[in-house]
C-alpha cells in the first residue's frame, strides 16, 4: 500500500563550470522513509515504505551510489561533489525497494 513516487526530485548544481572545477551537487527527495515498525494513532501498523537506493550518472557512467536503509531520515538530502572534466550530462535516480524509480537530469556546460 505504498504511495506512488510523486515527489518532485530537487537538485541544485551550477549550469556551467570550468574544466577541473569541483562542483557541489545537492539533492532532496521528499519521502517518508517509513520503517514499518510504527503504529498509527488508531493502533494499525504503518506499512514499510523505504527508498532503497540513490545513484547519479555522469555521461552514462555511474559515479555515486548510496544504499539507503530503514534508519535513514525522511526526505533524504544528499550533498556530494564532482570534478568536471568536460561537458557533463548528469542523471539522478531514486529507486524504491519495490522497484519503482523517480529521476531527474541536468547538464553542466564547460565555460
Amino acid at each position: 500500500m505504498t504511495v506512488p513516487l510523486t515527489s518532485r526530485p530537487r537538485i541544485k548544481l551550477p549550469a556551467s563550470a570550468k574544466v577541473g572545477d569541483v562542483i557541489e551537487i545537492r539533492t532532496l527527495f521528499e519521502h517518508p522513509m517509513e520503517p514499518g515498525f510504527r503504529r498509527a494513532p488508531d493502533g494499525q501498523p504503518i506499512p514499510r515504505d523505504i527508498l532503497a537506493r540513490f545513484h547519479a550518472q555522469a555521461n552514462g557512467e555511474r559515479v555515486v551510489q548510496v544504499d539507503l536503509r530503514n534508519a535513514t531520515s525522511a526526505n533524504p538530502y544528499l550533498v556530494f561533489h564532482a570534478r568536471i572534466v568536460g561537458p557533463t550530462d548528469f542523471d539522478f535516480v531514486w529507486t524504491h525497494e519495490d522497484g519503482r524509480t523517480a529521476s531527474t537530469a541536468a547538464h553542466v556546460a564547460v565555460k
Partner: protein
Amino acid sequence: MSDISRRNFGKFAIAGLSTLAAPSILQAKSGARLVIIGGGFGGASAARFARTNFPHIDVTVIEPQLTFVTCPYGNLLLAGARTLSDITHPYGVLKRRGVIFIHDWADAIEPDKKLVKLRSGKTVAYDKLIVSPGIGIKWGALPGYDQAAAQIFPHAWVPERGEQVLLLRKQLEALPDGGVVGFAIPGNPFRCPPGPYERISLVANYLKKHKPRAKILALDAKDAFSKQGLFQDAWNELYPGLIEWIPGSKDGKVVSIDTKEKVFQTEFGTRHKIDVGNVIPPQSAAKIAIDAGLTNETGFVPVNPYTFEATKAKDIHVIGDANIAGPMPKSGFIANSTSKQAVASAIALLEGREAPKDPIYFNTCYSHVGDDYGISVVGVFRPSEKGFVETPNSGGVSPRGPLAEKKTQRKLEAQYADAWYASITKDAFG
C-alpha cells in the same frame, strides 16, 4: 547617564564627610560586587533575585537601554492587540531596590583582571559576573540580509526600542489587499522556538480582519517546529487557505534575500516574490560573549548546567539566550528561571560554599494564535553531568482537538498567558 548611581552617590557622600565617619560608610559599601551584563529577562531577574535574597551583595547592571521592550507579546502588536508601551518595562523599581544601573554598552571583558570595559572608556570591576546579553544577529550569514536589508524586510527579533516590530506593523498596514507576506524561518537553535509560528498566526489574524485577500507564505528551513500540531490545527480552523507553510523537505529553506526585487530565494532555486517580508535571521550569542571568548564553534556559550559558569572562563556565569542549554528553549521564562540558580551559585562559590544542589528549571511558552485562543508547551528540566535533561512525563503541550470542543481551554490559556506575562515581568522588573 541620567541616574546617579548608588556607588557614585556613596563617593560624593564620603567626600563631604569627616574622615572619622568614612570607615563605617565604606564598611557598608564593601559588599562583594555582582555585575550583570544585560537588563533583559535574564539580567533583570538576576538583579532582582540577588537584591532580594543576598542584600549584602552590591548589584550592578550594565544595560545600554533605559527601558526594556520584551520580545514576548511583541507579536500582539502586529495584531493590534497591544501597544509598545504595554510591552515596555522601565528599570525604576529595580533601581529603588538598590540595583545600580550603568546605561552603557559592555564592550569587553577581561576575565584575568575581573573587569568589564564600557564603551564610554570606563571600567567596572567585579567579583562575579553574570552575562545575559541575549542573541546577536549573524549579519551576512544569510546572503543579502544585512542591517540595511532589515529596514526593508524587518527581523523584529531583537527588540531594542521596538523599532523593528513597529516597522513590520506599519508595512502590514500598507500592504495592498491580495499581497503576500513572506516569512523566512531559520534552522535551530534560535530565540523563542514557537515565536515565528505565533507571529504567523497573529499576522493572519490581522490580515483576516483587514486584508482578507492577502496570503502568508512561510518558508522554513525545518520540517518540524514547536507545538506544530496545535498551530496547524489553529491555522486550518481560524485562517483556512490563508497560510502556506513550506518545510525544508519541500524546498522551504531560504538561502538568499533580494531586497531590490523583493524576493526570498530557496535552496533549490525557487524565487518567491514577497510584498512584506519578515526575515528571522541566523543567530549567535550577542557580540560581547563572542568578543570575550566565551562562545564555542556553535556561536553560543557552553556552561556548567549546575552553576551556569562558562566552561571557558572562571567567575563568569552566562544565562539566557546566549548560552547552550538545549533541550531547554531560548525563552524569557528559562532566562528568568535559570537566573536564580546562576546568582545563588555565583554567590555561594564566591563565599566558599557549595552551589545549591538539585535545582529545577521551569519553562512554559504560551502562544496566542487568535482572539481568545492560547496554546502552551510546558517543560521541567534538571541539570546532569551530561547537560540539561527534561524530566520525563513532566510537561507537555495543550491537548489537541476541534475548536468546538476546546473553546474554553483555548480561552483560558489565552488568559493564563496574560497572567504569565504580568507575573514574569513583575518578577524581573518589578
